[in-house]
């Protein structure tokens, strides 16, 4: 794979929940070394896009390629090899609740490497230090605050030194100071460890602070992809609605409305 090829390449991705279409032919690509923010309100399809990119859902139509591997066609072994090069930090942290913080961070190393226990311990503690959680390895996830859980999840996501890091809603549910600290961490990760990072968020401030480029999704449509300045200057009405926190005007089709009210199959 040559160095300029995009690490993530999504072409014409469509996604459905039941009969409802969540993504309408989304094209999306991320270059090596950039911080890309996927921005959009709730229900914009940004989490669905993320689930497809990290291979939790296989595309119904369209293709998703990560690190040059087509996720829809890849076999189990190929997918496993790709997943070892990804780190994902989930919205709620998704730490394994029956394991201590240290064990959680060490889990990928234990499962994927033949390193001895001392090396694993040192490596996982190094990552905990990196996210400012030094000394917390013996605590259980239930004993951590919201911000600490996100940082512990980040430590677990980067413990294998992934090429690609995904971060789902880093600042959701956190106070401004803690979310600003997380933004700094994300910038540090790119600058110090040269990771390519994809962040999904609806927080404008955080997006503008960290993004190299922003992709704006709205109701399953990809509205634009551009630098912070380009997105700010966009003349698209829906983008300006999002930037200026204007409520959407919902147009109601009378026939559709009546059909929804009376439909027996729901």
């Amino acid at each position, binding site marked *: 794979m040559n160095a300029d090829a995009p690490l993530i390449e999504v072409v014409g991705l469509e996604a459905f929940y039941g009969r409802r279409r969540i993504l309408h032919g989304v094209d999306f690509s991320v270059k090596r070394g950039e911080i890309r923010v996927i921005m959009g309100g709730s229900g914009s399809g940004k989490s669905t896009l993320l689930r497809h990119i*990290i*291979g*939790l859902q296989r595309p119904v139509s369209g293709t998703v390629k990560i690190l040059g591997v087509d996720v829809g066609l890849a076999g*189990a*072994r190929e997918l*496993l090899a790709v*997943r*070892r090069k*990804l780190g*994902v930090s*989930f*919205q*709620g942290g*998704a*730490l*394994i*609740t029956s394991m201590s913080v240290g064990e959680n961070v060490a*889990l*990928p190393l234990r*499962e*994927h490497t033949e390193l001895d226990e001392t090396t694993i311990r040192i490596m996982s503690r190094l990552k905990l230090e990196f996210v400012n959680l030094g000394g917390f390895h013996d605590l259980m996830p239930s004993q951590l605050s919201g911000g600490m859980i996100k940082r512990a999840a980040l430590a*677990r996501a980067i413990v294998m030194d992934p090429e690609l890091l995904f971060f789902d809603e880093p600042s959701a549910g956190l106070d401004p100071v803690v979310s600003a600290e997380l933004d700094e961490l994300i910038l540090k990760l790119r600058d110090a460890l040269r990771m390519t990072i994809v962040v999904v968020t609806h927080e404008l401030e955080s997006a503008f602070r960290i993004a190299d480029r922003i992709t704006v999704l709205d109701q399953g449509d990809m509205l634009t992809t551009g630098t912070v300045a380009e997105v700010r200057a966009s003349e698209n009405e829906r983008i300006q609605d999002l930037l200026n926190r204007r409520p959407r005007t919902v147009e109601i089709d009378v026939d559709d409305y009546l059909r929804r009210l009376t439909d*027996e199959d729901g």
Partner: protein
Amino acid sequence: MKPALLLLNRLGRRTVAAVDAVGYGAGLVAEAMLFTVVGRRRGQPVRFAAIVEQMRQVGFDAIPIVMLLSLTVGLMLAIQFIATLSEFGAQTQVVLAVAKSVTREFGVLITGILVAGRSGSSFAARIGSMSVSQEVDALGVMGIDPVRYLVAPALVAMLLMLPVLTVLSDAAAIFGAALYSAPMLDISVPTYLAQTLEHLTPRDVWEGLAKSVVFALLITVIGVATGFSVSGGAEGVGRATTRAVVVSISAIIVADMIFSFFLNR
């Protein structure tokens, strides 16, 4: 839609859902077995330590309660058999009746029901709450296959431990029966036990053990499949746990009946 059509529609959907569930369960079992056998070569090893830990949880920790209840059921069987058999003046046949019914039926059935209540529910609750909090997704994207990591150790542990528990249950139940019957028959407990051994054939014990393997499979697959299909937060986990216990107990009782029918024709 007309009521009749609606009913038919619902019946069809339920049938499809049931077939789907059976297929999904069979797939889970096949996948877990495959990981156990060839997982190491594919970079998805089923850890020995995880199996041992599961064996402790589903097997070792269940020994006291299984033994206690089996002893009680043995006593109860002895009381009922002696009461009934003495009507024909055949109370000495209690040894034979208890020996056969315990090894073929009751030992394995009590064990199965207890383990379904203890471990089937805990599989469903654990995997269910992990699905809800995205822990299962997290394992997946870390390249740790959830079936290999969560299901395979549980399945192997159950397949190994349920037969062991069944043998212990058989012994405890027969001992319980001896406690009541020996004085009634004017013999000693060791004599009662010696007579039991004379009556028992390997086939009796094998029948119970074969059932225990099938029960282990049913309890595990129903527990984990229900866990993976949880939706709807904490309430969903509670519902799944209840459903796992009810469905797995129903399944083992039906399976037991089918087994007994074909093995005793």
